[in-house]
C-alpha cells in the first residue's frame, strides 16, 4: 500500500544543524533568572507503596506561572483557560493522599480537618 500527500516544495530540516551539533537548546538546557525547577522522583523499589507523605517536605508551595504569548482572541490578546490548569494537579494530589492514608476525597480543598474526620470515620471511632 502507498499513501501520498502533497507537500509543495520539499525543504531541508531547518533545525538540523542545531540538533546534530548539540547547539539546539531544550528546556533542560536552559537556565533563567528566577526559574523554578521540578524533579521527578521515582521509588528505587519496584511496586513499592507510598506509606506516608510529609506534605511540608514533598509538596512545596505551588506557584502559578503566567507565560504571556499575546495571541489570544480576547481583548488585549488574552485567552480564557478556565479550570484547565487546575485539573491535573489536584487529581494527582487526591490520588497521593488516597495512596498515603487510604481515604479518597472528591471535594477541594482537602483540609487537615477533613482528613482527620475522614480517618476517624473510617476507623469507626467517631470524632
Amino acid at each position, binding site marked *: 500500500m502507498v499513501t501520498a500527500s502533497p507537500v509543495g516544495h520539499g525543504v*531541508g*530540516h531547518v*533545525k*538540523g*544543524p*542545531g*540538533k*546534530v*551539533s*548539540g*547547539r*539546539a*537548546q*531544550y528546556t*533542560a*538546557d536552559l537556565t533563567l533568572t528566577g526559574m523554578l525547577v521540578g524533579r521527578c522522583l521515582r521509588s528505587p523499589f519496584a511496586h513499592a507503596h507510598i506509606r506516608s507523605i510529609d506534605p511540608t517536605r514533598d509538596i512545596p508551595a505551588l506557584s502559578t506561572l503566567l507565560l504571556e504569548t499575546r495571541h489570544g482572541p480576547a481583548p488585549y490578546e488574552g485567552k480564557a483557560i478556565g479550570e484547565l490548569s487546575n485539573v491535573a494537579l489536584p487529581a494527582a494530589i487526591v490520588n497521593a493522599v488516597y495512596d498515603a492514608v487510604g481515604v479518597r476525597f472528591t471535594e477541594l480543598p482537602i483540609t487537615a480537618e477533613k482528613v482527620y474526620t475522614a480517618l476517624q470515620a473510617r476507623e469507626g471511632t467517631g470524632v
Partner: protein
Amino acid sequence: MKQIDLRVNGERVVREVADNRLLLDFLRNDLGLTGSKEGCSIGVCGACTVLLDGQAISSCLALAAFADKHEVTTIEGLAEDGKLDPLQQAFIDFGGFQCGICTSGQIMSAKALLDSNAHPSEDEIKSWMMGNLCRCTGYYKIIESIQAAAEGRVGA
C-alpha cells in the same frame, strides 16, 4: 574535591570537581556543553554518550574524576572549522532525527563505530547502536544515516 586536568574537544581543561561529580553534569553544568543529554540516568538510553579516548561511554555513569588525564569528545567537538562531521551531515541529509534529544548520543556512538569499523554491515550497525534509544524515528533513518556516512553519500 579533586583537581582534574583533561582535554575536552581538543582543549585543555583544569577544574576542581567534587569526588562524586558525574562526567555528564561536569560537561553540561560546569562547562556548559549541553549537547550531551540526560535521559535515563542509568546508562540505558545512550543520550549522554561521549567519547573517552575514542571509546563510547555513558557519561551519566562515569565520574568526572574518571576522565582525569584523558581526552573527552562531545557532540560539540565533532565539527571542525565550522564544517559538520560527515556523520552529522548524514543525519541531516537522511533525516536521522526528529526531536533531536537522542541525536547527540546517536552520533557519538556511531562515530565510535565508524572509527573502529569504517564499513559496518547493517547488522553490525544495529548491534552497535543497540545502546542508543530513540522514540521518534523508528531507527530506520538512523541506520540509513550511518550507512550513508560510511559510504560517503553526504552533502549532496
